[in-house]
């Protein structure tokens, strides 16, 4: 029914006349008859906008939106100032293409340049690219930056997010790199085991902090070890933690990557999100993806352009080190608007609030009979609980009250996530439910 053709039936006839054809089928002479689908009567008509909107609203309404959420594990519910949505819906930002024509794309180019700057400020690194698909692909691309013909051995920690792990395993198959895991001990990367795993072919090491269990890794030791061996270090971070936690650059990390979703991007069932990558000046030419640079125009006016393009696939073809030819500009825009409106103090406040709320819930939870901390280390806003009560019982109890339960890691382990949106009253309610479960569990 609906279509968006800009040409009327009458005008189509005029066009056919200009082309001297009877039927539009004549335009398809090159298509063999055996596979040509003639205009038939059995083609289904579409629906009106009214009907499609109705269907989509109905379907959206069948998805459960939890009143409160204690699940993170790579995707986080934060408060998104509504101005972020409104700016990201501006038509020109939504509908423009990759800014190939700088004269009429200064807006998008400046947005990306500002995003690159914000990511550098956030991570303390020298340079950033215009973003990649998500945190998992950012990790994979960072590894691809480090491997060389003779150095294809890559160490990754067992404590990284399992989604990232799966993506990296796939890249292992694709690139012919050798992945080896650094074992986990008490919820942390076992750095004592690290030196013996390093070989002369080791190109780089990938660790996340906070790691999948929410624990902060021992980055001082990690960076010292890696530097001694002359190996590239890659660190995955949760950007929200950097409002209070030490900047990765302090540890001398070579490449910092992460999932930018916490910065103003809705959960959206997993995408689109925002992978960011930042590195040291000397690695800039290995950095994949789009990069925007500042220059001047012929009158000496400040101008922004896509630059260092000779690194990219559309020029290097089979010699390129990455096939990425896009970026998540609209998601990067969201992150930039988010960081600009909250500002340095607001960002610190959100970061502090995540940590304080999470530590409050953890402390109170572990006072409840039958609930214990999974791991001893310091954490940011995620932590693991161990309980004699089966995970499924706890989940069922919380779901009854419209709460998205923590992610079950095993029959008795749960991964909790708390952010600034989980207010005290709400957490106290969860604690009361856990007490109930605990008492019921003990009664049995």
């Amino acid at each position, binding site marked *: 029914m609906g279509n968006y053709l*800009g*040409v009327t039936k009458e005008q189509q006839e005029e*066009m056919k006349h200009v*082309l001297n054809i009877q039927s539009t089928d004549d335009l398809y002479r*090159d*298509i*063999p008859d055996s596979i040509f*689908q003639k205009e038939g009567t059995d083609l*289904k008509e579409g*629906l009106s906008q009214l009907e*499609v909107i109705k269907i989509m*609203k109905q*379907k*959206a309404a069948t*998805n*459960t939106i939890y009143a409160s959420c204690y699940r993170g594990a790579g995707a986080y519910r934060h408060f998104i100032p509504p101005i972020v949505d409104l*700016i990201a819906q501006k038509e*020109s930002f*939504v509908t*423009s293409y*990759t800014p190939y*024509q700088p004269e*009429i*794309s200064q807006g998008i180019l*400046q947005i990306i340049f500002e995003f690159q700057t914000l990511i*550098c400020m956030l991570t303390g690194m020298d340079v950033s690219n215009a973003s990649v698909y998500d945190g998992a692909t950012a990790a994979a691309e960072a590894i691809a930056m480090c491997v060389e013909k003779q150095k294809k051995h890559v160490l990754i920690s067992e404590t990284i997010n399992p989604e*990232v792990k799966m*993506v990296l395993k*796939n890249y292992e*198959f694709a690139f012919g790199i050798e992945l080896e895991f650094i074992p986990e001990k008490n919820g942390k990367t076992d750095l004592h085991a690290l030196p013996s795993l390093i070989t002369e072919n080791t190109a780089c090491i990938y660790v996340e902090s906070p790691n999948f269990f929410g624990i902060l890794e021992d980055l001082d030791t990690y960076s010292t070890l890696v530097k001694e061996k002359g190996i590239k270090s890659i660190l995955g971070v949760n950007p929200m933690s*950097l*409002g209070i*936690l030490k*900047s990765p650059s302090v540890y001398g990390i070579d490449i910092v990557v992460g999932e930018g979703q916490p910065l103003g991007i809705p*959960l*959206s*069932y997993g*995408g*689109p999100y925002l992978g960011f990558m930042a590195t040291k000046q000397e690695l800039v030419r290995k950095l994949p993806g789009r990069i*925007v640079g*500042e220059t*001047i*125009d012929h009158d000496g006016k400040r101008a922004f352009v896509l630059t260092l393009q000779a690194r990219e696939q*559309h020029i290097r*073809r089979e010699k*390129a080190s990455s096939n990425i030819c*896009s*970026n*998540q*500009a*609209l*998601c990067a825009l969201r992150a930039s608007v988010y960081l*600009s409106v*909250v*500002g340095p*103090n*607001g960002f610190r406040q959100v970061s502090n*609030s995540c940590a*304080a709320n999470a530590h409050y819930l953890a402390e109170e939870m572990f006072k409840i009979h039958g609930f214990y901390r999974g791991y001893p280390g*310091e954490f940011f806003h995620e932590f693991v609980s161990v309980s004699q009560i089966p995970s499924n019982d706890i989940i069922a109890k919380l779901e009854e009250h419209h709460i998205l339960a923590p992610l079950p890691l095993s029959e008795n382990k749960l991964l909790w996530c708390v952010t600034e949106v989980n207010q005290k009253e709400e957490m106290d309610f969860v604690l009361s439910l856990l007490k109930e479960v605990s008492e019921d569990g003990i009664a049995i």
Partner: protein
Amino acid sequence: MELLFEKTVSGRQTSYIPELEVPFYQYEDKYLNEQSLDFPELSELDVSRHYSELERRTFGINQGFYPLGSCTMKYNPRFHEQVASLPGFCDIHPLQSLESVPGAKFIYEKSEELLCKITGMDYMSFQPAAGAQGEFLGILLIKKFHEKNGEGGTRSKILIPDSAHGTNPATAALCGLNVVTVRSTNEGYMDLNHLRELANTEIAGLMLTNPNTLGVFDPNICEITKIVHEAGGLCYYDGANLNPIMNIARPGDMGFDCIHLNLHKTFSTPHGGGGPGAGAVGMKELLKECYDEVWKVKAFHGHFLVVVRALCYLLTLGEKGIRDSAVQSVLSANYMKKQLEDTFTIKQKGFCMHEFVITLEEESKNYGFRALDVAKAFIDYQMYPPTMYFPQIIPEALMVEPTETESKETLDYAVEIYKKVYQDLKRDPDSAKDYPKTTPIHRPDEVSAARNPKLRWRKET
């Protein structure tokens, strides 16, 4: 124009979240960030005005004709944006139980059903974030297939025509395959004799765009896929140019085993200034088992909200609307091409598909103005230039793809301007470098940008 960082006023801020209701958590010093964050300090109004100004400096489809060849810049229906911001789609966690998201399940299943029908595939994956990642997954499927058949070590070559987009060879090479280039004939078709020479037991398969980057449909397509299959290879279809043949010819019927679609081109989801798009990958039954092993190319379930938009499009158009769009895209391209033929040298001699390629090779030699100059001059008439210098095998190329959503009036206006610009430049080639004249900046110095990269703002010290 000033940057966010240059507008900052210390102490300016807006409040978004309440004060702490729980005790402040004090980390040990060794974890704490002692450095100050340099983010800008601005009011919401400052930020609002900043981005409004940036929007004025960004040319979108909402502002004018956008005939970027090979990018399919069709109208992005506005109601899709509204649907994609419904809380039932935006506020669901990727690790929620499947039972709690029947609506999300519907989005994926319905999109799969409809896209399989259009392409002649058996399954459709929505994992890949973009076309390039779709190619990556597709090539992994082919690699896995041969590995499972015990030929992983021997089938190490991939055939790619010389007209292919640069991403094809980049993807194949990243996946450890050796790229072997197949020649094109003068008409822009694949050279069958060369293909026969190259198709042997060392090939993993073929990557092909059809219609190809020259905007022509290869009439030998069934023969091509047959030759590759007989040599034991698989055929990969790059869906960059599916738009003109939707519900007219299906890649599955042409003999392709797996394909990727760019939902942001063909199925009208917006480009967002460079992304996010989505690259759906279709495959036939024989690759399903391989898919179960290599499906994970990104975290979670792909670009869900992009698929939501594509489904809105598929439902609105229906099979008939989809076919009508394809036909109109071809009709419009040929209509434009026909009228430009008396002025410009156009590569395709017969009918083109949805796009055509102008070459200014002669003009650059004889008059000294280049494809770049012509493109820049169009900007002054409120239209986005065509794709420049692509495909790479055509010198001084301008690739024009009007798409089906542009009106006849727009096409007529564009034809008039294209001719006017051409005559103006021919008359006064010395003025070539002055265009565009009406934009906030004139031509930027890309050489110094690349020689002395300045990739971030820094506080002046």
